[in-house]
């Protein structure tokens, strides 16, 4: 639950390429600001304590759990959510392979999982199966048992290499 201590302040950040200024409590969770103030509901809350990764977003290129980030920390940062991945070639490839290989079932972990996978492929364009297993270990999925997610990420990597 968000900490509403202190006075609200103005915080500016770049979200999905657009400059945004919000008024928020300094310790308010980035997750809540994204979902409630900016209407970016593709970022999900799963546990609120940084275990499940459903709220994963990219902040200055790093994969973070937005439920653990006080919004003050995002001052001046570049934040990318699932809604901002439209033009990213890796993300588009992953979205296709997730559909093809059954990487999404109920879909609630999927936005975070795709962000984690984009991050993984940026770091390791040709990942081994172990790279994928460990690279996604911070994102929990209860439906798939992960195997088809691994296959989707591996397939997207192959397509990336071919391109």
């Amino acid at each position: 639950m968000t900490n509403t201590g202190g006075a609200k302040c103005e915080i500016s950040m770049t979200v999905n390429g657009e400059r945004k200024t919000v008024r928020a409590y300094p310790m308010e969770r980035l997750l809540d600001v994204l979902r409630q103030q900016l209407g970016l509901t593709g970022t999900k809350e799963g546990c609120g304590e940084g275990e499940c990764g459903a709220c994963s977003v990219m902040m200055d290129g790093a994969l973070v759990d937005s439920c653990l980030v006080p919004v003050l920390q995002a001052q001046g940062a570049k934040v990318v959510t699932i809604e901002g991945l439209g033009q990213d070639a890796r993300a588009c490839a992953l979205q296709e392979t997730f559909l093809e290989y059954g990487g999404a079932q109920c879909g609630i972990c999927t936005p975070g999982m795709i962000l984690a996978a984009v991050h993984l492929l940026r770091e390791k364009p040709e990942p081994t199966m172990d790279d994928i297993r460990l690279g996604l270990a911070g994102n929990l999925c209860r439906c798939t048992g992960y195997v088809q997610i691994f296959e989707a990420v591996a397939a997207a990597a192959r397509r990336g290499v071919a391109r």
Partner: protein
Amino acid sequence: MKDDRIVGLSAPRKEGRDKVTGRARYIDDISLPGMLYGATVRSRIPRGKIKKVTFGPGINWSEFVVVTAKDIPGKNYIALIENDQPCLADGMVNHPEEPILLLAHADRHALPKAAEAVSIEYESLSPVFTIEESERQTETIWGADNTFKTYLIQKGNVDDVWDKADYIVEGEYTTGAQEQLYIETNGMIAAFDAERGVTVWGSLQCPYYVHKALMALFDLPETKVRVVQTETGGAFGGKEEYPSMIAAHAALLAMKSGRPVKIIYDRAEDMVATTKRHPSRTRHRTAVRKDGKILGGEIELTIDGGAYLTLSPVVLSRATIHAGGPYEWPAIRVRAKAVATSAPPHGAFRGFGAPQSLFAMERHMDRIARAVNLSPVEIRCVNFLKHGQTTITEQTINEPIDLRGMVDRALEYSSYREKKQRFARENESGTTRKGMGIAAFLHGAGFTGSGERYLSSVVGVEGTAEGRVRVLVSSTEFGQGTNTVLSQIAAETLGLPYEDIEIAQPDTTEVPNSGPTVASRTAMVVGKLVASAATGLEQTLTASGMLGTTHTAAEFRMACRAHVAAHGQFRSLARYDQPANIFWDDKNYRGEAYSAFAWAVYVAEVTVDLTTYSVSVDDFVALQEIGRVLNPVLARGQIIGGVAQGVGFALYEKVEWRDGRMQNGQMTNYIMPTSADVPPIRVFFEELGNTHGAYGAKGIGELPMDGPAPAIVNAIEDALGIPMDSIPLLPEDIFDAIASASKRESDARSPAGVR
């Protein structure tokens, strides 16, 4: 007959694109104008009388909407089977998470502090926390004897078998509670209008369960209650019944405040207060001939239902019918009961009782094998059900069955024999021990016995003004593939492209009651009704002369449009009609329990680390016969996902109880498998078909939950030579077992256990 064109192919998930782009709207993604947020104040003691409720200082209570049991216009219960569970406690609490009163406020951040400021004084009464305490009736907490339900199955004369036995093998097996742990927590939005009644939107499996509960709670006719399912982020049984409670709470707050109210549980509330898998204890006593043939046996099965009856009788029913596994029992007596304890009610979780009783059966088969000195494979092959034989409810197996052939395949895929021999040699030294384990099992698809006849499900298929086809069902999508598979069936039946089919959002004002989305019934039972309703639509068009008997998709679309233009709404309904040859005796628990069984043989390979006492599953082969595979990618996904949950059930997921309350209600300390924990899960299908299901399908969703735990624990016994009969098995449990290994080994060989 048309050629099958879409059924059997991996059509892409119907709502998949919305999910991978983040556009899919789950309940917490939706807001209504003027909406308040709701919270639940719960008991903090396991059992007692409420003496006084005080609204503490430091809170401006005039800003809050407060609802108590006195605000309920109709019946204060959550309608289900026995209606014994209150919506809000009225004078008495029976478990430590019982809802007592409700708060709403425009600022969701204001709620936690206010909820804490409500103090409740109790007169404590003695609780009951375990199956054993409940049986001893140290305190009577429910009914006359703490017993929700009993069943007795008797086949042949068990009392005659003991004298003929070469061996009598006994064992006791227990399984723990397990949290469903869908990643989307429970949530609802409710609105109330004096004219239109109650509307709720939310994350749920069974719209008509919620509908029924709200009608009773508000004393409203069915037309004044509307239930709409929003995109649901996982359920696994965990959203079968409890959403009725949350919908009731949100709706009461909406009625009192006159504004829409949203209730979203945080993870801790969801884990601690809502249902989990029933803990179980199963005792086996089996008479066996020296060639391994089971002559008969007794099974005593008990599940812990928690404080209210809820779904426990039905869970117990499935546990009971599956208790004998896929084996031929010339004589058997199964005594089963569900008992009350002072914990939040346990409920539906994928498998619904069968994972508990099949864990016991499949562990016991390995114990029998050791006693008789046969291999785990041999003991199973001697006893497998064959065509023409009968199950423990005396249901004759008339469908094709080939368990023997499936074992051979599973052993080959897993290199079982070579590995077992190699591990036996390698386990002589080093700091790890490896083992192979097998489990064979069955899962009945659909409601038990006469259940489907009572449900009498209805499905609609509509031709639209745009020439498209909409499937109207209350069967919900929560990841398992309902939308996709039912669309495939409609497309196949009508000879249309998959893209021409739409699925209506489950909304009780729009869709007929196709039954709850449970019991692995959707593809098989509802799918068949979709095919019938679609055929009805086509027949109407051909009978009216608007469509030729053979036609193209374009002609169908044109005919649909013409029919709507001429006659308005164009719908075809189909109602379930039980096959005449299905006979079920509910009193004696005898007869055709299920119209189809799925069959499976799973093999697990494990390593036990003798330094950390952790177990890793290194390989997993899952072979099943589920009739026709309607969508290979989705079917494989169901199996892999179920196996992963089974790995958690066996090795990771332990609910720590204190005074009836879960202590580890966080993902930090209740551990489910991560991507680093799952083995390669290799999925194989046999397709022997099924005359009852849509295009030959049987149920699939629950089956894969049944086999992993016993296969894994059998592999651990193979690795260590120490029997383990309770799950979950965390490293500390393995440590304890190894530490007392000599005692356990001597117990296993004692004359009392084996004759």
